[in-house]
């Protein structure tokens, strides 16, 4: 999972209720539970599939039928960039083939071309089938297991209906029935050291691990045998709280809207941004910025942190308007107060500082309150 926040100290992370540490950018907020949630505390649901190249939405059934891959877009087997369908036209005929704009890989050498687009796509599909040596063996195995499964059900019913069991019946039911011919082991002598040294290999033509795995069916050794692969689909996901099952994030299905979300309860909208302004020998100065539209309150508790309840004013940048509430009870702790930011000084017992923050903010008419642990790592 990609994380937005850095792990190079100095950093400030928040601890989720499950004990994992995350940056503010990665976390969500559930309103019914009044809880900050990390990406592991939300359940994801796939809303829709789309191709990252043609941007076409695909319903679930169609995505399932195409094995979560796009039917029209392909990626280069060598450099994984998107392939283009090129037209090689002469006077006699038109030839469509795949071509990579980045590494100049071409499908003509593999024999993948067609007189029309459909023919090209079909020939690529045929190539997949032809190229997979394990396909037939796998098909036999699958068929056999299906057959065995069906027979077992039948046998079970047959013997259950019998009133008296003889020893022969028991023997028959237990005896294994050979359904499949076991694969014959091919005697293969691994090449000797001298043989390997003298072998004429062009190492530029050998596939890398990534290239081989992207061609999972054939796993070709030489690059000139790898064929164009369909592009895997990407997903749009909605997220629910793990505890109350309510939506936390819901993406917009209509992509023409400017806002990509129908609903987004992210922690960045409701919890103050905290920066380190200055690191002194035995203390450090923190900067807190209130992102909400109303005055909010914070109570900090921790080792060498003076117990205090402070308020943060709100600021509307469009109207250039500050909503203020005078001074807090512990105003002396605040070094500087400017618009919606305050800077405070806390003690520095070690390079790892843990502070509990109780945050109270307004959302419309509701007052929400929650506790979260802040981890400050300095070195």
């Amino acid at each position, binding site marked *: 999972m*990609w*994380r*937005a926040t850095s792990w190079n100290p*100095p950093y400030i992370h928040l601890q989720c209720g499950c004990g994992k540490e995350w940056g503010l*950018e*990665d976390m*969500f907020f559930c309103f019914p539970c009044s809880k900050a949630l990390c990406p592991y505390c939300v359940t994801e649901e796939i809303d829709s599939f*789309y191709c*990252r*190249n*043609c*941007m076409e939405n695909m319903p679930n059934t169609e995505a399932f039928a195409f094995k979560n891959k796009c039917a029209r877009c392909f*990626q280069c087997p060598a*450099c*994984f*960039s*998107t392939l*283009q369908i090129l037209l090689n036209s002469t006077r006699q005929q038109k030839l469509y083939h795949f071509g*990579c*704009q*980045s*590494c100049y890989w071409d499908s003509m050498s593999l024999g993948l071309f067609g007189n029309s687009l459909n023919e090209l796509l079909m020939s690529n599909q045929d190539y997949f089938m032809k190229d997979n040596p394990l396909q037939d063996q796998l098909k036999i195995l699958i068929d056999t297991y299906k057959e065995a499964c069906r027979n077992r059900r039948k046998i079970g019913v047959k013997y259950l209906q019998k009133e008296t069991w003889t020893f022969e019946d028991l023997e028959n039911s237990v005896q294994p029935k050979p359904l499949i011919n076991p694969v014959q082991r091919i005697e293969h002598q691994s090449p000797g050291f001298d043989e390997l040294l003298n072998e004429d290999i062009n190492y530029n033509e050998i596939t890398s691990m990534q290239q081989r795995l992207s061609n999972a069916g054939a796993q070709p050794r030489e690059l000139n045998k790898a064929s164009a692969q369909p592009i895997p689909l*990407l997903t749009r996901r909605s*997220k629910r709280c793990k505890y109350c099952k309510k939506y936390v*994030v819901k993406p917009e299905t209509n992509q023409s809207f400017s806002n*990509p*979300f129908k609903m*987004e309860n*992210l*922690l*960045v*909208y409701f919890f103050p941004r905290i*920066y*380190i*302004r200055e690191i002194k020998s035995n203390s450090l100065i923190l*900067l807190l910025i209130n992102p909400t539209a109303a005055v909010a309150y914070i109570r900090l508790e921790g080792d060498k942190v003076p117990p205090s309840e402070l308020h943060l004013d709100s600021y509307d940048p469009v109207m250039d308007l500050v909503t203020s509430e005078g001074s807090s009870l512990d105003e002396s702790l605040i070094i500087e107060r400017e618009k919606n930011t305050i800077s405070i000084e806390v003690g520095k017992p070690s390079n790892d500082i843990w502070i509990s923050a109780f945050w109270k903010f307004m959302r419309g008419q509701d007052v929400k309150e929650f506790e979260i642990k802040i981890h400050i790592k300095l070195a």
Partner: protein
Amino acid sequence: MEPVKVFYNKKEYLETHTGNKVCRKSLIRGSHNIHLNGKCIISPGVVIRGDLAPVKIGKYTIFKEDVVLRPSYKRAKGKLKYITMQIGEHVLIEEGSIVCASKIGNNVHVGKNCIISHRCVLRDNCKIEDGAILSPDTEVPSFTIYGGKPATYLADMPDSTVFMHTELTQGYYNRFLPLA
């Protein structure tokens, strides 16, 4: 750490009434074809080729040092035709990148020393990693990270990208101050 303030020499920059800050050491060709919607920062060494085709740039767009903007071309009926380059709001392009995309959405972050080839389309809220090379006609969907040579899909961006990136570019503009 708290983001640092960036100071510039007032004599080296031109300021328009809409808040654009354009460095005199940048190379801007075809200025009648370049539309800045306000609050943009154009750093020294930036090249904008407005003489090839119109370039439209949205609000709070920041071009750092030595960025090259060149409209992309299309081949139509055997002739080369340059097409309009559209750049959205809150776009940050880091040092030394060469951008020939036909369209860049909102909240896009392009890393250092990237090459974005002709006719690429970068959708909203995406990120291109440092040193990436996008091959021609690549389409980068929203909320994704592309990187590598040639650039491929790497990962998804978090949902807070819209907020974080707007804050990043707005913050950079507000902290970009003239030397007293």
